[in-house]
């Protein structure tokens, strides 16, 4: 187990290196001169040249990358071209709201997805299953921004039950969470359904039934417990993706998180902030994948690490 964890951490570090290279290459992929963006369109060529030199943009690419990496190691993600503030601080301010939103969305997915998964598994291949599965397909297919706007107009504007976008207290979280919950829950429903159907065919379930256990007891104590393992795995990975993937929800609901920061930075071509958000969002995905891999073994004793 220990060796496995060390190996996985080693692999993650290699992936993180890859992410750092991709983030760094963004500097070159964006078709704009960073020195010109900082100096503004009215600056003289001398001023632009001075800024280029100050930033080390005249150095060979590999040297620039090493500088970038050294800065990263020291926790320095650079300074925003537009807002003249340290990128880490700007991202730090946004991490809390994004984590809050991601958690809210995740819980909504589970609250909607798991009961439907159980329901469809118990009524597999019946009309009820088909209706729910069809609805789940609709849910999966609806664009988040469209559903979000629809809910905002209905509950925020017409009925005025919830705030019209923005971030703050719990009441601001409900609509974005429901929006994401509806569009994301179907994955959990389908996963749990197939997992439960798989478990239901196992011998020990037949045994439990033969012993006269009630259907309720069979489902809750025997089927669900075992069937939830892949759901837990997926759930862990999902949180990582959610942290990186709530961009559209943030944009739709004007939620001041990292996704919004990434969007505005792209609009402003604020390269250090784009690089910083890409890097950190990548790191989240890697870390959650790693945590899932490790906890997988802890949750399911059948899994062995060789």
């Amino acid at each position, binding site marked *: 187990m220990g060796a496995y964890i060390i190996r996985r951490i080693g692999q993650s570090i290699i992936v993180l290196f890859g992410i750092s290279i991709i983030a760094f290459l963004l500097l070159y992929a964006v078709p704009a001169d960073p020195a010109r963006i900082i100096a503004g369109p*009215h600056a003289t060529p001398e001023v632009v040249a001075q800024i280029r030199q100050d930033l080390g943009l005249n150095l060979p690419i590999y040297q620039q990358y090493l500088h970038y990496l050294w800065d990263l190691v020291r926790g320095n993600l650079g300074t925003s071209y*537009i807002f*003249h503030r340290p990128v880490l601080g700007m991202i730090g301010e946004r991490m809390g709201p994004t984590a809050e939103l991601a958690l809210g969305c995740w819980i909504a997915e589970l609250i909607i997805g798991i009961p439907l998964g159980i329901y469809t598994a118990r009524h597999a291949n019946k009309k009820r299953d088909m209706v729910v599965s069809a609805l789940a397909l609709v849910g999966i297919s609806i664009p988040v921004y469209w559903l979000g706007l629809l809910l905002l107009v209905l509950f925020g504007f017409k009925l005025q039950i919830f705030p019209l976008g923005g971030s703050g207290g719990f009441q601001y979280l409900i609509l974005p969470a429901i929006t994401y919950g509806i569009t994301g829950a179907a994955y959990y429903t389908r996963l749990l359904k197939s997992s439960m159907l798989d478990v239901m065919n196992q011998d020990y379930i037949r045994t439990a039934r033969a012993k006269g256990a009630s259907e309720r007891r069979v489902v809750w104590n025997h089927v669900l417990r075992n069937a939830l393992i892949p759901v837990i795995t997926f759930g862990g990975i999902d949180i990582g993706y959610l942290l990186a993937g709530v961009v559209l929800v943030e944009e739709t609901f004007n939620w001041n998180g990292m996704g919004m920061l990434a969007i505005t930075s792209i609009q402003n071509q604020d390269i250090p902030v784009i690089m910083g958000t890409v890097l950190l969002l990548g790191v989240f995905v890697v870390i959650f994948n790693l945590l899932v891999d490790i906890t997988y073994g802890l949750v399911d004793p059948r899994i062995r690490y060789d």
Partner: protein
Amino acid sequence: MSMSWKKGLATVSSVAMIGVLLAGCGTSNTGNSSSGSSNTASTNGSSGGTSTSDNSKPVEGGSITLDITQAVPDLDPAVAFDTNSAEIEQQVYEPLVTYKGSTDQLTGDLATDWTVSTDGKTYTFHIRNGVKFSNGDPVTAKNFVYQLQRILDKNLQPKPSPGYTFFLNITGAQAYYDGKAKSISGVSTPDDYTLVIKLDKPQQYFIKILAMPFLSATDPSFVNKVGNAAFDTTKSMGTGPFILQSNSQSQVVLVKNPNYWQKDSQGNQLPYLDKVTININNNSQLDALHWEQGKTAFMSPWLMGGDGLPASAYATIMNTPKYKQLVMQQPENSFFYIGLNMKKTLDGKPNPLSNIKVRQAIEYGFDRSQYVKLENGADKPVNEPMPDSIEGFVKNLDPSAQYSFDPNKAKQLLKDAGYANGLTLDMWNRDTETAKKEDQAFQAMMKNIGININLHEVTFKDFLTKAMSGTAPIYFSGWNQDYPDASDFLNTFFNTNQIPENNMSNYSDPQVDQWLNAAEFDASASDRDNLYAKVINKVMSDAVFVPTTETVGHWSVQSWVHGFYTSNITYDPMAYIWVDPGHNS
């Protein structure tokens, strides 16, 4: 100088270069106050915008909430040069002179009055006595010298002033900028309340440059204490009606400046409002819903970008009587055009557009009325390189400078130019929804006369990079005035010395340069309008621009907001606004 944008491109407004705008012709409308008092929008002054007027007594106190589409990047008046920043900046800082209400009439701000020498080269300002910064420090003439030095400091942090070129005609400014002098020789302060500025050459619009926010009073002891970077973003401090309480990525909060010097005509202390909260809301659909719900006090071009109405809400607001009656309209001093590059060769190949017949064919093949329809009919057509509200606009162009829609004539011109079988030309524009509509319309018009347009729709920054290098054969662009003067349009676009960054068409004509330079720096050129009329007729007959439309700004103001007026020179008049009790937010 300023490159402007259209509806849908508001997202880039905070980094787009935009100056202040000028007064134009207003229209009027009427609104009904929810509290029973009348709130009537009316035309204000001969060249001014519209205003909510009402006879009730202003209410002291209260607060309003607004939405803005982008975070505010710069608040240092030396550095800020975009509309989002300027909207806040105007509430915190004040220059020497400003414009009276919604008119284009100059009036003293921190200067009570000024004199200009007969040779037009020496300006003497009398600084208002007793004005204090919001931290209590007194304002003297030296505060302006200090700020001018900051504008001309090429090493200013976090970045040099984008406006320094406006001030290089001040004697000794170039030497100071180049680091060859420790002070600006043409600026002096005979006493604490007198500021003398000498120019190298007489410049009739110099006073308008001083009405821009760059040369506002700043406090050296405060700037040194907080540092330039913080001064630009979170620790701004000036003499204006409001104090910046906070500026974050999500919200800007302004609170009343208790030390503000100005009072209203009844002797009441300004501003009336205690607090203005501006939420940075990247989603303009939500901005419109907030306003429709009555959560925000007003929407304006300065807050929303473009023409002031979010594109998604235009139809709803303008087709719903209860909303429409709250919308004031006034032409902004910005206009859009299709630029034709005259350079002989581009990217090493001969440029067909260097042939005047090809350019004239494009002029005749262009149907302006179709462009107006693309903008919901909200914009005005324009047929010369300047909005009609700028002094010097030519009412009756020479016949050679006018082009009516005539596809047959266009085809004949192309044939005469040796392109009987048609030709292909590259056009550059931004990748916005509005731009795409316009491009497609233009493409169809040109196809109709035998020109195949190869489109390049790119980000605003990429567009600027390409166009400002002077290598885009055809480019769709726009311009918002920096200061209300024909010089800001005509000299910028057509003077040879502006190639390529501003004169992106590479237009160069010695006679036009002579007229422009005379109007620019010649005290004897008293009739500048005539000189500019000659320029306009000449460049239009040379078919270098296809002017398209002028933007009409929309200000949507709640009926419970009073004292509001529109201006296309200065920004939203928060110092003069009051709200009915019960509408605090």
